[in-house]
């Protein structure tokens, strides 16, 4: 009986010590994760700035024209129209519109 009481007492002591040690260990882990979170947030912000700078219209236009040989659409090359399917008397135009490039349009005109 005495041995059992001593064993229970020892278990309680170990449990207490283990709990304290674990609290300290988890505390360190939390601190490490906080630092890591802070670092990742900084990295995210830096990437956000980089993304915004890389997607600046100035840069996109420069790359499109100088590197890819693209040109802005010339006068009349883009015509905005409202689509109305043939044979549908119930059709009411919606605000949605269709973009038609000039080369397509020339076929239709013909």
């Amino acid at each position: 009986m005495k041995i059992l009481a001593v064993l229970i007492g020892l278990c309680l002591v170990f449990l207490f010590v283990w709990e304290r040690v674990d609290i300290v260990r988890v505390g360190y882990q939390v601190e490490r994760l906080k630092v890591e979170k802070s670092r990742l947030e900084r990295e995210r912000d830096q990437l956000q700035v980089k993304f915004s700078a890389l997607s600046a219209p100035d840069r996109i236009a420069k790359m499109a024209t100088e590197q890819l040989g693209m040109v802005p659409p010339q006068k009349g090359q883009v015509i905005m129209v409202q689509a109305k399917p043939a044979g549908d008397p119930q059709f009411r135009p919606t605000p949605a519109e269709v973009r038609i490039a000039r080369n397509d349009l020339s076929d239709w005109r013909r």
Partner: protein
Amino acid sequence: MAAPLGRGRRYITLLLLLCGFGVVLFRLATLQVLQAAELTVKADRQHQKTVSLEGVRGTIVDRHGKMLAMNLEVPSVFGVPTALDSPAKTARSLSPVLHVRADELERKLRQDRGFVWLARKLDPEQGRRLERMPMEGIGIVLEGRRFYPKGPLLSHVLGFAGMDGEGLEGIERRYESHLHGEKRVTVLQRDALGRTVFPKKMSNEQSPAPGHQLVLTIDEVIQYIVEKELEEAVARAEAKSGTMIVLDPSTGALLASAVSPRFDPNAVSALRPDRWRNRALTDAYEPGSTMKAVLAAAAIEERVMKPDTLVFGEQGRMAIGNTMIHDHEKLGWLSFAQVIQKSSNVGAAKAGMALGEQRFYRYLQSFGFGERTEIDLPGEAAGLLKHPREWGGRTLASISMGQEIGVTPMQMVSAVAAIANGGVLMRPYVVSEIRDAQGQTLKEVQPHVKRRVISPETARTVTTILEGVVTDGTGGKAAIAGFRVAGKTGTAQKIDSRTGRYSASQFVSSFVGYVPANNPRLAMIVLIDEPRGEAWGGTVAAPVFNRVGEQVLNYLGVSSDVSVKLAMASGKP
């Protein structure tokens, strides 16, 4: 005999020990209990140094959430002169990383102080290089630095923030109370000898609330189109500067606002203040013939003129008092619509005189001249509109053709936007929403009606006249294929500062108008200051209106007014 003596010595020794412990305990109690609070503060003062750093500033985004301004945590480097063995050697090592001269760094490191800033708000890459070269007596803390990732885009509207994170110009200044975050405090530790000072940790000590996010009415793409076309026009005309504004006439929302030349808000320290002044708001100019659009609205509303009322052009010359009013060509009988379309000064002066001083003044006030538009940007000028009792013999005629009155580009485009908006003057605005750091809306700005200035019927009539300016008048180069454009050209002589008289070589060329005229989506003004060579508003400014209008309408997906018959596929093979 020995035993009592020994016992006595033991008692005395015990007594002395007890007294000794008693003294120690008493001192301990005094220090740890009685003087605990006072000594803790004293110890903290000796071992810690508190550095106050600005809070995380809120971001600024355009109407589609595109980032225009945001803060980054970047390294700032400090030194502890008392902890350095060789300030000269340390300065030489740091100089190439910090881009600061070695002798300047050495001078700072030789100061008899416990803490000294060496370089603040460095690039993240510089911080990484510093971390790889740890040095005794040198430390790093993180501070917020403002970044404008789009560079010069929208710079005159955004403004910029200073080194300590406070807004100094533009939106950054106007919305300082929303943008700035809570101040935060970093505690730096000293050792027992008071030699080293280092932060407790690199991350924030506290988590103060960051500033609010501002959502603008600006569209990044429209802004880019405007800036590109304006820069090109200013370069083409070899002009001193240029200004362009795009408003949504139905709400007063600012879609774009540009001043040329631009500046990069990421590097303002080397620039003079006149480079970052937002001339669209701060600079009043004599508008010249663009004022005739307002004159037409007032004259038609007051029924002193109709579009077909005949006015004699006096063959391009008319005397008023001791002065002479000239037209750019000899004009005979004209309808009032033609007076505006051909921009006749004589005809405008006659319409102004028919209207009378008091009535015209009332309309000028009503259209917003002489008062700020109340746009939510700092530094706006009220312009110059004198009271009729201060008017001279020629003033009525002069104002009718846009002289003797000072207006800002924002006032002029707002006034013309009122005509586009069926006669209702809106208050222009640039911030549409304010959100907290979690993205919750704190305030949503609704369009604000200032007042009705003319009736819808008058607005329609004036629109027809202004369409004639583009189809048959001086503004032909503003015409956009497939769209009805209404507008007015202006070519205003500037006052020569040396003579105090109108200059024969310095002009402000402008065009103000809206498109599509039947259902306006854009109200725009283009101003080119001191173009070289041909300076007519119709030649210099109107083409910019055309190029911007065409691209922006295409971008917005506004369908053409011209009907095109298309054979739609039925879907059957």
